[in-house]
C-alpha cells in the first residue's frame, strides 16, 4: 500500500488501485483521511527513554567489560620479571658453587688440607695397626692415585700431583718410621 503516498487524490488512482482500496476509501474525503492517517503515523514523534536507563546501562557495561588498567599490568610484569631473574641467579649460584670449590681445591691449591693433628702416642697406635700394609699398598699402586691413571692423560699435571703425593707419602712414612 506504499503507493498511496505517491497519489495526490482519489481520482489519480487507477481502477485496480481503487478496487484494492474499496474497503478503505471510496471518495476523495475518505482517501485524504486514509492518506493523512498513514502519513501522520510515519511522522510519529520520537519518544526518547528517560536518562536513568542510559546511566544504568553504562554502569552495567562497565561492570561487564572491566579491563585491568595497563599500568598495573606493567607493574605485575616487572615484579614477575624481578622474581624470575632473582630465582635464576640463585639457581645458577647453587649449581656452580660446589663445582668451583672442587676445581679450586684441585687446581689452584696443590696443598692437601691437613686434618687435625693427632698426638704422637695415638699415631703410634694407628701405625702399629696398619704397619706394613700402607707402605706396600702404596708401592704396588705406584703411589697414591696410580691405579686411576690413564695413558695420554695430561702428563705434567699427573706428574705434579703424583710427585706431590709421593712426597707426602714419603714424609708420612718417615714420620711413621721415626715414631716406630
Amino acid at each position, binding site marked *: 500500500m506504499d503507493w498511496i503516498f505517491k497519489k495526490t487524490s482519489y481520482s489519480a488512482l487507477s481502477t485496480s488501485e481503487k478496487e484494492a482500496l474499496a474497503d478503505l*476509501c471510496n471518495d476523495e474525503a475518505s482517501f485524504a483521511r486514509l492518506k493523512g492517517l498513514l502519513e501522520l503515523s510515519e511522522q510519529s514523534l520520537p519518544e526518547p527513554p528517560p536518562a536513568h536507563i542510559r546511566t544504568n546501562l553504562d554502569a552495567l557495561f562497565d561492570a561487564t567489560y572491566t579491563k585491568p588498567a595497563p599500568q598495573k599490568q606493567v607493574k605485575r610484569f616487572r615484579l614477575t620479571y624481578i622474581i624470575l631473574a632473582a630465582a635464576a641467579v640463585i639457581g645458577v649460584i647453587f649449581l656452580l658453587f660446589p663445582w668451583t670449590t672442587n676445581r679450586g681445591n684441585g687446581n689452584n691449591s696443590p696443598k692437601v688440607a691437613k686434618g687435625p693433628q693427632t698426638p704422637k702416642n695415638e699415631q703410634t697406635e694407628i701405625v702399629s695397626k696398619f704397619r706394613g700394609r700402607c707402605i706396600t699398598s702404596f708401592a704396588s699402586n705406584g703411589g697414591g692415585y696410580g691405579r686411576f691413571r690413564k695413558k695420554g692423560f695430561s702428563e705434567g699435571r699427573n706428574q705434579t700431583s703424583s710427585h706431590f703425593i709421593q712426597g707426602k707419602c714419603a714424609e708420612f712414612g718417615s714420620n711413621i718410621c721415626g715414631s716406630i
Partner: protein
Amino acid sequence: MRIVKTGFVDYSDEDLMLAIQQGEKLAFNELYTRYSDKLYGYILKMLWYNEVRAQDLLQDLFAKIITQPGLFDTERTFKTWVYTIASNLCKNEFKRNEVRKGTVNGVEQFYSLSSDANVEKEVHERQFRDALTEALMKLDTKHRQVFVLKHMDGLSIKEIAEITEANEGTVKSRLFYAIKKLADTLHMFEYA
C-alpha cells in the same frame, strides 16, 4: 603516530554488535543512540503506554545486548533480531497480565504546542494523533504490532514477517485490517 578513535558512526548495526562483544563501549553508545527511541516507542505502544513497564523492558533488552551479545544471530539483520526480542519481551509481559488494558498514560506529554501562527493546524494534528493513539490502543496486539512496525517504525513486510514469525500474506492481511479499523475509528477527522 597515535591513532584516534572517532567512534562507530559509520559502522553497520551488525559490526557494532561484534565490537560490543569485544567490550567497545562507544559501539554500544552508537547502537543505543540508533535504536533506543524507536524501541522505546514500540514497546510503549505495545504496552498501552505503561511507561514504567516500557522502561523496564527497554532496560532489559539493552542489558541483554550488553551481557549476552553472543546471542545475536549473525545470519539475521540486527534490526529484525532486536525487534523480535522486544516483541517477545512484550509477549511475556502480556502473559504476566501485569499491564492494565485500555489505559493511555502520559500520551499528553509527548505533544507540546508551539506558539507560532500555525496553531490551528497543530491543534488539529495533535487531536488527530491523540485519537490515532487511542484507536491504536484499542486494536488487538497482532494488528497493533504490524501497524506500528510498518507505519511507525518503517520496517518492510518481509522484516515484519520475520519478527512476528508469520508469512508475508498474513502480515499484509493484518495490516490491511488494522488500517481499516483505524480509518473507521478516525472517520470524523478531515485531513487536508
